[in-house]
């Protein structure tokens, strides 16, 4: 196990270096020179040249990359030219929002998807199963930017049950915080449960045909125990993979949902950074988000081992 962990951790490094290289080169290749953005109306060629020199933009790209990487290795991710915030400050402010959104959305999606998948699998081919399949594809066809606004109209404007937009830190007022998160996480959950349901359903159906399920029935176990204890766990490996990818993706922010619900998450930070060519923020955040993704993947691998003792004990 320790060996397993160590090897995975070692694997983190090259991936992160590749991510940072990719970010850096993409960021540097973006049209729209930072100098012009900063100078605006002042952008005479001389001013631009001078500013570029000041910011080191005239250096070769590999040199800039190494410089930046050197800083990163010392824990200095740099500062935004626009807001003066350091990357770490910016991420520290935004990350809790994205993580909470991600967690609640996953909870919602799993909360909807898993029970439905189990019911559909237990009654596969039946009318309920078919109906849910149709509903799932129906939900897939409603993009988040549409479902978000529909939810707002319904729950916030018509019923006035929940706030339409906004955010309060959890520490300040846990209840209000959760109220703010209901609609955004529901929006994401609505988009994600169909995938979860489809995947788990088909794995469940396969598992339910296994001999050990027949044996569990033959032992006279109650149906609930068979479904939840005997069938769910061995069927959930793909589910865990998918959830892992979703989580990794959502750490990088859910731009659309954050924009519509005005949540100050990583997604808006990233998009703001790219739209204002705030490359220091962009590079730093992408690197941190990438690390988050790799770590999630790592956790997912660990989870495999928890779920399946065969993996834990090195049998494939």
């Amino acid at each position, binding site marked *: 196990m320790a060996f397993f962990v160590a090897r995975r951790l070692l694997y983190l490094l090259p991936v992160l270096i590749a991510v940072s290289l990719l970010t850096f080169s993409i960021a540097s290749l973006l049209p729209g020179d930072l100098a012009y953005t900063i*100078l605006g109306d002042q*952008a005479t060629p001389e001013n631009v040249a001078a500013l570029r020199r000041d910011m080191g933009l005239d250096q070769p790209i590999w040199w800039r990359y190494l410089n930046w990487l050197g800083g990163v290795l010392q824990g200095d991710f740099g*500062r935004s030219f626009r807001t003066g*915030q350091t990357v770490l400050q910016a991420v520290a402010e935004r990350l809790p929002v994205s993580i909470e959104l991600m967690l609640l959305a996953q909870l919602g999606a799993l909360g909807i998807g898993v029970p439905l998948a189990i019911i559909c699998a237990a009654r596969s081919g039946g009318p309920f199963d078919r109906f849910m399949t149709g509903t799932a594809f129906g939900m897939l066809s409603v993009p988040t930017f549409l479902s978000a606004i529909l939810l707002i109209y319904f729950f916030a404007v018509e019923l006035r049950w929940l706030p*339409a*937009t906004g*955010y309060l830190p959890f520490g300040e007022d846990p209840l209000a915080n959760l109220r703010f998160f209901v609609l955004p996480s529901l929006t994401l959950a609505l988009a994600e449960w169909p995938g979860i349901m489809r995947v788990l359903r088909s794995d469940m159906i396969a598992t339910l045909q296994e001999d050990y399920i027949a044996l569990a029935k033959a032992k006279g176990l109650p149906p609930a125990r068979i479904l939840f204890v005997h069938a769910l766990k061995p069927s959930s490996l793909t589910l865990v993979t998918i959830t892992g990818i979703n989580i990794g993706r959502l750490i990088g922010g859910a731009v659309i949902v954050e924009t519509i619900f005005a949540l100050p998450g990583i997604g808006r930070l990233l998009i703001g950074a790219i739209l*204002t060519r705030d490359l220091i923020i962009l590079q730093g955040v992408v690197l941190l988000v990438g690390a988050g993704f790799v770590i999630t993947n790592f956790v997912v691998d660990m989870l495999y081992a928890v779920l399946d003792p065969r993996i834990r004990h090195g049998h494939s």
Partner: protein
Amino acid sequence: QKAGGSITVGLELDIPGFDPLKVGVYDTAALTASSALFDTLTYLDANGKPQPKLAVSWSSSEDFKTWTFKLRPGVKFHDGTPFNAEAYKANFDRQKDPANKCRCAFYISNVNNVQAPDELTLVYNLNDPSVNFPSLLISYANQNAAVHSPTAWKTKGDDYNRNPVGTGPYILKSWTAGDRMVLEKNPNYWDKDKVYFDRITLKPLPDAQSRFASLQSGEVDLIWDDEYDPDNIQKAQKDSKLAVHTYEGSGAVVYAFNTKTPPFDDVRVRQAIVMALDRKKWSQAITNGLARPASNPYGDGSWIKCKDDGALPEDVEKAKALIKDYGKPVEFKTLFTATPRGRANGQVLQQFWKRIGANMEIEQVDQATIPPRAFMRQFQMTPWRIVDFADPDTQMYANFKTGSPVALANYSNPELDKLLDRARTTADTAQRIEDYCAISRLINKEAIWFWAFQNTYYAISSAKVKGLPKMYSGVIDVSRAWKE
């Protein structure tokens, strides 16, 4: 008019900060905050007349090139340091200093220097005469006019940007990036009797639909809006619980031709392009008719009114003839922002020009790409905006004078240069109006830029919100408003 309570304002954009050296120019969202955080020397009353704020009185020299202001005594910054002429001068010098390369310096290019002869006296020395100076760049809390505490920016360094310190009626209490900024009433404000709310909360709500929904559901009391959200504005106008605030500004949304690249190196093509426009329909298509067509750079809100601005007629047949006359196929690209409004404008313009046989390709780019492309002249046609200015000089000069970095059309005409120079140095208003109208006629005839719509500013609030001043330059200033 009762004191107390609080207001929540939904703005469109996230505010990057307040340090002019960092952010360069305040956008509309920042202006709402800065007008609560900072004071300026003067402000404009409902009639557009300058009234004393930090300056209690002012006078000018004969040639209108030197303006002397008497400052209000006893004013303190939020950090307790005193406000005086020296502090004001420090603000100005910091922006003007070429070493700081501040974008903001552009707007004070006409000011040669600022002197602080004594504690409460401030002297502006201008390069060219300015008759209306007290109502110009010092009348609202933009990047140049907001007065910051020099101690604060010196001690806070990089962090000052997000921890601004002014003399204004409200103090920054807390600010979460991307989320809310909470301002609390300044208990030591010199004019605190006219300040009612205990607290102002500003939130960036980037999506127009959910912003309006937040107003409807009562989470915010007031929202910024623009005419590209016409359905909601019109809905609010009919709703007795809501109030629509609007200000018809000067300035306009404009488009610049790059006259150095074909096909726009030929004036016939440019004229045809302009004549093909039907601004009424255009406005109908994208704003339900809310947008006000523009035929010159000044707009109804400006004091420059021309009997003849030389606008080209909207005439499709004539345009077709001009294109035919040109003889070659007219094909070009226009930059648009990759936003719903960019796409909307692009598609409508494409339609107009298709009718006269000109083929326009929409090139969608993100907002950050447009300025560099414009400054590097890497475009055939680009959208631009003339912001509200009480005096057109700064912008007109920058936009059309040969050699200016912002003279996007790449157009050079000695007559135009002469007119621009004269208009800026003359003190006589009638003469200046005449000159600016001549400039408009010249530009319209040469069709180096064309005007789309005049700037109109919108805010929608709950009907209970009262006391909102006129939104000069689009500033939503809630610092002296109250709720019924």
